[in-house]
């Protein structure tokens, strides 16, 4: 949405407690600061972090943002580290919103539904994409960078300059050394390529 100079992006980041949705949110956060945009980021702390369903609402705008929560029907993107968790938030998506989801389930429950049904439901949302982010990250050097594959795939939709996301990764992982930064930046780029169909 870009009407009369008004810019906003509502992003839901979802997954299972412990999967690292916080790194995705933090990376977008640093990039938003560099872009000098307003943001609000709502997180889940507490009991759900123990292997439960978790989500973060990330809101970006060039005007002050009121609600910490994204209204239903307003999200531009769902970035999900886990496929079933993506579907939990579909009624938050705007009518032209999309899902960018990892392919691989996190099965810490005994009654996990049929995967095909989940994948089909994701792909039924136009322009959505399912990526084997773990495998792609492994090819680059560490399956831990799966998050950044997904973030990279979402980068074009987020509407912040790509270089700012790269800088965010440098800030976020700088303390862990150059190798970790390199892998995560490569993952970000690979994610972008996958989304563009390369």
């Amino acid at each position, binding site marked *: 949405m870009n009407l009369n100079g*008004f810019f906003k992006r509502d992003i839901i980041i979802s997954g*299972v*407690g*412990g999967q690292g949705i916080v790194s995705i949110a933090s990376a977008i*956060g640093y990039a938003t*600061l560099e872009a000098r945009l*307003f*943001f*609000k*980021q*709502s*997180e*889940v*702390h*507490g*009991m*759900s*972090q*123990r*292997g*439960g*369903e978790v989500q973060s*609402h990330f809101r970006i705008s060039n*005007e002050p*943002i*009121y*609600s*910490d*929560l*994204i*209204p*239903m*029907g*307003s999200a531009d993107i769902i970035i999900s580290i886990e496929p*079933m*968790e993506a*579907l*939990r938030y*579909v*009624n*938050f*998506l*705007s*009518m032209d919103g999309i899902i960018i989801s990892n392919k691989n389930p996190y099965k*810490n*429950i005994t*009654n*996990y*539904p*049929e995967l095909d*049904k*989940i994948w089909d*439901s994701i792909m039924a*949302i136009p322009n959505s994409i399912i990526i084997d982010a773990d495998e792609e990250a492994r090819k680059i050097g560490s399956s831990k960078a799966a998050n950044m594959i997904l973030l990279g795939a979402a980068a074009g939709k987020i509407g912040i300059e790509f270089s700012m996301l790269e800088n965010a990764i440098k800030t976020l992982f700088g303390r862990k050394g150059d190798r970790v930064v390199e892998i995560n930046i490569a993952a970000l780029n690979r994610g972008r390529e996958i989304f563009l169909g390369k």
Partner: protein
Amino acid sequence: MKKLPLLGDEAIAQAAIDAGITAIYAYPGTPSTEITEYVSRSKQAKEKGIKSHWTSNEKTSVEAAIGVSYAGKRAMACMKHVGLNVAADPFMNSAITGANGGLIIVSADDPSMHSSQNEQDSRYYGKFALIPTLEPHDQQEAYDMVHYGFDLSEKYGTPVLMRITTRLAHSRAGVTLNVPKKENELKLPADLRQFVLLPSIARKRYEMLLNKQEAFEKESTESGFNKLIDGVDKKLGVIVSGIAYNYIMENFQHKNFPYPMLRITQYPLPTAMIKQLVESVDEVLVIEEGYPLIEEQLKGIMGIGKPVHGRLDGSLPRKGELNPNIVGKVFGIESSYRDVNYDFLVNRPPQLCNGCPHIDSYEALNEALADYTTGRVMSDIGCYTLGAYPPFNSINSCVDMGASITMAKGAADAGLVPAVSVIGDSTFMHSGITGLVDCVAYNTPVTILIVDNEITAMTGGQASMALGRLESVILGTGVHPEHMHVIDPRRKNHEKNVEIFKKELAYDGVSVIIARRECIVALDEIRKEKQKLAKVN
């Protein structure tokens, strides 16, 4: 001015540092934990020499904060809403003693019970204690209100309550900071009997508190935080408190809000402003996050002669957290969204981590209890409460901090023998010790399992008061050394541990079994703490 990206909790913490606090005290509890964590990690706080202490419980937090205030310095005590129940005694009485140095008590409510056993509204405590209460609507206002709150506290010699909710506590936004202040000089109260609440003095202090009410209300009217905003459509007037304001504005972004609106973030309620609004409109709508506190007062028994809408008449849900959609709906705004219902979706409840020591503890306990009828395990508040879920189905209660031991005592007194208590190390130090003393005093046949993972785990890993002192505390209460065991909850020790449980379940008196193994997700932190402890000793 540079903006810092801060959670609501962190904005409060940074403001406390900048407002020149001398000390901050807390017992961890979602969603309040990150306030004190932030101060503990802050380099600036370290340089200023600010004392940031996790305490045994919320009562000791507030009492220590009152002590700092007595000495003329600024202090903050932080807790979750149910923690304020634990601290209610010092909290209520601090209103009578009044403050010397600035004193703010922060209580973080959890509407919709994301991580809590109820959704009580702390604003009632502010009203109950007759002290000013602040309810910021966003991160910046939370920051600004801490500064204002300390000044207010010192101006009127009163403690101040700050009430936030989960959504503000755990949402991040850019916050602009003030110039930091230095801490106060040590300065005892002018009247050294101010804090001596003997009846004769307490009566005078209570009178003084009552006499301050008018000034508190004047502050609510004039501080600028409560705002009366006019609107063209006088059919409806809206009174909105705290974070609910954001949800209205979200629905009216780029539009003029048509109705006159009174935005409340400071209590006691500004009567004059409310009258002004009510007189100018036909009907009133009250939107507040939490209980219908304003709505109830407005309606009273006799009413205001005009319809009042809100949570009590079904215009808004009676319970649970508000959101932009619920608030939009009350104004007739329906949003379009994909109304999908995937019937194959299943819930994913939180669960014990892989390798968690509690798993082994519950497996051993379950086996030892297999010879008895079910329904005899009282438990408590922590990660181990997840033992209520399959595959364990081990526990039968979770009521309040420490209640496992005392409920087991009551159940045993009623004839349920053996009765079992399962409690964490930190929860035991919080409120379990006194219950254990009760059991020992009457030699009640209870078996108490302390699942000691050497940290306060559920809230993300804060120091446990039990570390390095648990056995001596237990023996100090009079538990017989033969009936205190320390076991290592691991698969390979299963048979041995089951035997110990069985033996103690059969014992006609108080037994304590400590199942000690580090929390699997906090191994590094715990080892560091232990090294520190070893150095001290």
